[in-house]
């Protein structure tokens, strides 16, 4: 499996009336074909901004100012709007949290579905319609032939999210970004949508970036996980290591804050004492300092980097507690490079 996406230390800033605000800082992760990564973290930690940065869908006042987003070896951080238009909906597509407001209320489902198909796949109107009906059936929409001429307000939230998924997957993207696709839905519908996404992922080998608050969803869907805190990735590893052997004090806190980790119905994140520093006055050192039970003096002054340690799988952590392991890993890695 080859590398599909490599996000490297991106920084996303918003120009506001009160000056620039950095919402995402040094976020890095990578993703192979067909792999699913979950981005988790508290509200406001920059999960949505990260995903919107990849797609160039940030509000007009926001932009990626540093770092690179390599997608199939093209740097999206430097891509022009015209280049992005060819990629959006075609190579990378996206579904959003709010199915109730994500579809245009005055255009039919068919119109909205076929738009992208006709644009990217160059189908004729009738071919596109046939294909759209096929897609609707694939995502489990009953009466697809009838629904295609309906307006979104006739559909329930779950059905609309299915339409969104059909739309997102219609041009066979290599990467699907799903920003809390089930948060707004009932529990039973949530399970159905996740099931659907798993099924489609297997069929098409699409890589997925899944944003969620819900560790249950992570356990269900993820191959690997990036834990974000205050605009940074603080820990990244595969899903088994994350649950078996979490390292970063913030991740540990998240895990502890779940009342019954064995009960899969109740794995939503609750909060850790203290609050996230605001984007306007980020501490100079570790951003978790105020809330960290292991905080040391140097954590206040120095900034920890995201570094790999030796573990079952690739595992990187942004914390001084693991400095020795990080150094060991670096040494070994360097030796390997020399010997090879």
């Amino acid at each position: 499996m080859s590398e599909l996406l490599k996000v490297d230390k991106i920084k996303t800033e918003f120009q506001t009336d009160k000056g620039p605000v950095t919402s995402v800082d040094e976020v890095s992760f990578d993703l192979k074909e067909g792999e699913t990564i979950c981005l988790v973290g508290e509200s406001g930690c920059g999960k949505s901004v990260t995903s919107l940065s990849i797609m160039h869908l940030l509000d007009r006042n926001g932009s990626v100012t540093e770092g690179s987003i390599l997608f199939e070896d093209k740097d999206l951080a430097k891509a022009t709007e015209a280049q992005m238009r060819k990629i959006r909906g075609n190579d990378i597509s996206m579904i959003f949290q709010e199915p109730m407001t994500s579809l245009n209320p005055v255009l039919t489902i068919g119109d909205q579905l076929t738009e992208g198909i006709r644009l990217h796949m160059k189908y004729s109107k009738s071919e596109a319609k046939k294909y759209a009906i096929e897609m609707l059936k694939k995502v489990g929409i009953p009466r697809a032939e009838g629904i295609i001429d309906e307006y979104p307000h006739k559909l329930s939230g779950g059905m609309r999210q299915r339409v969104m998924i059909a739309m997102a997957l219609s041009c066979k993207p290599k990467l699907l970004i799903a920003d809390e696709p089930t948060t707004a839905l009932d529990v039973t519908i949530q399970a159905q949508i996740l099931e659907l996404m798993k099924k489609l992922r297997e069929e098409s080998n699409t890589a997925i970036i899944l944003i969620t608050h819900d560790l249950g969803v992570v356990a269900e869907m993820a191959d690997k996980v990036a834990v974000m805190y205050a605009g940074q990735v603080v820990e990244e590893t595969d899903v088994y290591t994350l649950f078996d052997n979490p390292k970063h004090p913030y991740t540990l806190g998240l895990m502890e804050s779940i009342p019954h980790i064995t009960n899969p119905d109740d794995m939503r994140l609750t909060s850790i004492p203290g609050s996230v520093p605001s984007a306007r006055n980020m501490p100079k050192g570790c951003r978790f300092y105020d809330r960290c039970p292991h905080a040391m003096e140097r954590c206040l002054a120095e900034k920890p980097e995201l570094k790999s340690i030796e573990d079952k799988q690739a595992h990187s952590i942004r914390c001084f507690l693991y400095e020795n392991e990080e150094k060991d890993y670096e040494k070994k890695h360097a030796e390997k490079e020399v010997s090879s």
Partner: protein
Amino acid sequence: MLQYIIRRILIAIPVLFGVTVLNFLIINLAPGNPVDMMVNPSATPAQLAATKHALGLDQPVWVQYWNWLVQLLHGNLGFSYSTREPVTQILMAHVGPTVLLMGVSLIVGYLIAIPLGIICARKQNSWIDYIVTGFSFFGISVPHFFLGLGVIYVFASKLLWFPTGSMNTLGGDGSFIDTFNHLVLPVLVLATGIGGNMVRYVRSSMLDVLGKDYLRTAKAKGLSQFLITNKHALRNSLIPIITVIGIDIPLLIGGAIVTEQVFQWPGLGLLTIQSITSRDYSTLMAINLLAACTVLFANLLTDILYAVADPRIRYD
């Protein structure tokens, strides 16, 4: 939908009836009467009384109204007290020029305002936004008589580019070019107001829509900015725009009183002023009735257009 339209038309009948009663009362409450205005000053009181009697003006108001209503139901709008021509004929002669003037003004105003409103919303807080918004406030706030006299002074008196008023050159050939030349200045005045108003509504309604989630979805599909704005966003911002159009349509009939006066445009506005000064009750009543019908029609049309623009609106 058809049922809804029929119901609305049925409701319109009592409304129209009420409008005519009110109009009749108000007109009759106004001081003066047609006879004072038409008979020459040396007429004796006996002659005046005889004329009044002949016209039925000596009867109680409600009898006069009843007679008028009976005639109306026979399709007869009466004859003008001042020119003695049939009112229908007078109306016909004046409707055309007003519809021409207002129609052109509305179209010109909208054609300029709607794209400008969209551009302002897309480029919010840019210099073009500020300039257009500034002009629109000017258009809304400047009185028509003032702007009218201003453009006459500049373009007709000083520059001699256009005629000062009327619809055709006296004794001219009445050609299209001639009418066009006469149209330019009054249209300029009216379109300024109409457009200025429309720009504000288009801009704010567009701004509202541009922040919506479904536009991000459209962009995520890879659509061009042109399609996003003009297909996805514009359709959604139509409702407030339709409302404004619905309010503007009655202007087609009655809106240009001041401007028609300033430019001596031979339309319904000018006719209204003439009828008021000559206490020409029958013509006034006919104009009022026509205006009321137009307003009711515009309201109905607005509601139908709502349903066309927004599939969530259904009248059943």
